[in-house]
């Protein structure tokens, strides 16, 4: 079965970029355009991995993550936080909230693909 990946970002170009990065792998890609959509789609799809932007309208990436981690079926779901906020405090906050990887923008799409593959490999 194809692994489901949910891409959450309010910036369209970013979503396109992430999608382009992961296009070559055998993933079922979905997109959410703000925090509320992220939570909604996550519950609906139960993705195998989430790529989450930190700054989104409505709920922020952190709020989304915290909410999802509170639900049993998302306790172990790998989450990659993608963000333009690069301060240490933001990284710590993300780690505290239970993020698996933290990538700051600009990021390497190739590296992102590798990380996604690695995290999903570990899932098996």
């Amino acid at each position, binding site marked *: 079965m194809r692994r489901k990946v949910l891409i959450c970002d309010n910036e369209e170009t970013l979503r396109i970029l992430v999608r382009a990065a992961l296009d070559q792998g055998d993933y079922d890609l979905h997109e959410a355009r703000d925090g509320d959509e992220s939570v909604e789609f996550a519950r609906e799809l139960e993705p195998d991995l989430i790529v989450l932007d930190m700054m989104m309208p409505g709920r922020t990436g952190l709020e989304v993550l915290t909410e999802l981690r509170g639900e049993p079926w998302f306790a172990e779901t790998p989450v990659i936080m993608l963000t333009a906020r690069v301060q240490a405090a933001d990284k710590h906050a993300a780690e505290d909230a239970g993020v698996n990887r933290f990538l700051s923008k600009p990021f390497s799409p*190739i590296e992102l693909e590798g990380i996604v593959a690695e995290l999903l490999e570990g899932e098996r």
Partner: protein
Amino acid sequence: MKGLTGRMLFASTVLATLVAGAFAVLILGIGELRKDARRASHSETVLNDASHLEKLVIDLETGERGFVITAKPEFLEPWQNARRALLGGELDGLERLVQNNPAQQRRARAISADVRSYLSQYGEPLVAKTRQGRLLRAAAIVAGGEGRRRVDAIRARFRRFAAVQEKLAAELRSHAETEAHRAVVMGLGGLAGSVLLILLFAGYFMRLIVTPVRRLAAAAGRLAEGDLSTRVPSAGAAEVADLSRRFNEMAESLEASHHELESQNARLAAAHEALKENSALLTAVTEGSRDIVTVKDLEGRFVMINPAGAEVLGKPVDEIVGKTLAELVRAEDQDAAQRTMADDRRVMESGDWSTYEEGGGFHSASGAYLSTKGPYRDADGDVIGLIGITKDITERKAAEEEIMRHAGINEAILESSADGIGMFDLEGRIVFANAAFERLVSDLLGEPAELMRRERTMDELSELVARRVTRPEEYRTGVASLIADPEQEGTGEYEIEESGRSFKRASAPVRDAEGTLLGRIITLREVTQERAAEQLKSELVATVSHELRTPLASILGFAELLSQREVDAETRERYLATIHGEAKRLTNLVNDFLDLQRIEQESFTLALEPFDIEEVLREQLEVFAGQSEAHRVELDVREEQPPLLGERDRIAQVIANLISNAIKYSPEGGTVKVAVDARGDMVRVSVADTGLGIPQDQQRKLFTKFFRVDTSDTREIGGTGLGLALSREIVEAHGGRIGFESREGEGSTFWFELPRALTHNGSAGQYVLVVEDDRAAAALLTEYLTGDGYGVEVARSGDEALARVDQNPPALICLDIVLAGELDGWQILSRLKTNPATEHIPVVVCTGRNGRDQAAALGAADFITKPFSPERIRKVVERLLPEGRGSVLVVDDDDSVRRLVHETLKGHCTDLREAADGEQALAEVARRKPDVVVLDLIMPGLDGFAVLERLHADPETRTIPIIVLTARRLSADERGLLRERTVSLLNKSAYSAEELRRVVDSALADAAA
């Protein structure tokens, strides 16, 4: 009987008894003698008596015989006398005399009887017969001798009686002699005994008293001669022994005293020596002393003065001595000298030492002296003068004043510090707190500052603060470590939970000059705003970082994919388009951001100029019409708008931004309406859309940098998030306002207002034409002139300038020489001055170049060199534009009154100046003559009346109309005076703004006429 008294009493008693006995014997003897003498005298009397009787008897017989013989009565007289005596008592008397001696008594009685019988028997009868003349018979009887015999017998009897009596007397004499002898013997014996006894006693007492006394005397003599060791035996009678003992004691005490005296003498001698030395030393010291040493008598005359004093008085010592200070100093120092002398008198009266500070008084003009004065006493302790030691403290005083001044400055610095500065001593008690400290601590505690002053220690204060801060434990730990270690330096920052205010505390130990720890200084500063600013800044940095990283992520990400992966042509095109779009977005972002930064900096200046808003709007509309075919943009200009004052391109930027937003946030096919209308002095431009509207909760943040309306619309809106923030900065820099009304789902209307370009007095044509191609210079000049109330137009080139002048001749032209375009300033000037239609317009040449002479030659009214001050421009323009101006000077010491008058008159005159007192008022008038003066009467210093006098006294200023505005109740005289000198009198408490304006307007009209 040991005592001398007893012994003497005894001796005296014995002696007295003895003497008394002797005397008694003597007296007894004498008594016996006297008795014998008395007896002898009695016998004598008896004998005499008997003899007398015998003679009487003889007389009887003789008388009888004579009578008888002669018969002469003369002879009878003795007889009669004798008979009368005998019978009358003589006979009885004898008998009585011897009544103690019976034998003699018998004999006396016998005599008596014989005599009586003789008389009775013989004598009387005979006498009687004779008388009877019987003389013969009588003679016979006589011759018979009878009578004689009888008388002889009686006489015999008398002889016997006398013999016995004689014998008795002899016996008595013999007895008396014996008695007398015995008495003499006894008296002598007693005397001799007494003398002997006295001698004995004398001897005894001599031995008892005199010897020891003599011994004492000798001892005293020896003592007197200096033998202080002399002592006497203390034996003998009690008193003597006592005396000796006392003498010995005295001698001992004397000896002790002597020794004491001797040692004292030795000391005295030493002291005397020292004194002699001291006296020399004293002289040396006073002579050499730089302090003034003086001695004065009770009248204040100098008795002694040392050379230092003489030098200060500027006279030789011998001229000073004998004179008082007042007699010695100059006339201008008399007061000081009198004060000094009064002090002297006070010291002499009180007799106490005192110190006085004295100024001047001596010949040096402005010295300060410190005098210590005390009474000069003689040996009896009476005050006979004054001793004074005077120090020249001129320099010290100056230094002190300097220190005081510094202390004052230091205190002023401390008090004016916005930082709270407080000091606690080592016990943690507050010893100093400046005003800011009290205020801040009071803010921290949430209590009035007075409570803080109540002896609160650092401990207590910090505990009170700890209860209110957001992190009390951290705060407590910090304070505890400061208290525990007085040497520790440290800073801390804390936030008050309730108010959210942040405070920064810096603390360090305080040491005195020697390095001794005195306490701790605490500096408090409220950093709420700084923290907020920092917070804002760090958020801004984070946001900017985010805003930059987002497009960068796309650019770099797609570039990487392009380089790392094989992609088809179509995909590559798409990637490249994205890269391009994101790069452009990044560029806009950087531009906007830098723009905004520049505007926010204070150095930002706008090139203000009047511009036609409608023209700008039309340009922008064209731009957007071309960009978005999906939207309709309409312009609604209802009437012709006056020119606005501002920087045209910036305002265009704002308009573009608002239209762009309106298009972005309204659905395709929507209409954007742009309108212009005048609102008082302002012109409002509004841009309305029919778009999404702005949610209520987000409206507040709309003008914040990087804020984007958060919509559920999934459409990508883009933009930098800086547009509105930038627009607001631009509009506000123009002195305008920006705002919006919005309803979610219905659309928004954004608007901004800008001030109109000012025109002078509203009258067309009365304006200054500034001919200047440099925008900044033109803006500056415009600002100066509009600030002074003149209408201004700017021409950027010579052609434009000439066209404007032709169209609407200005009242004045400010002309730059160096101009872009064909014509330079000189050419313009020459053309203006050669044209009869324009030659009357005054031209001021404003240039950075030289050319004053050329300007004058070409007919310029004045020449100003760049750079120029606003005052220079104002003066020149005022001189050249006399009509239509109205310059009012408001003179009042009350700031609020001046402000009120200013507000009231704003717009009624072109030039409003203020003066806070009479001096300032006159200075202002001298600087530039006002058209009208509004004058208060009661002012400190030069008051309104004085100002009136001065203005009236000068012909130049006499004609200035004066409006008196006063709260003072005026006397009739004052009213009269004011009527003469002023045009109007307004009561401060009763005038209306309307009244003041009317009065000022009419005064200005008069002044212009």
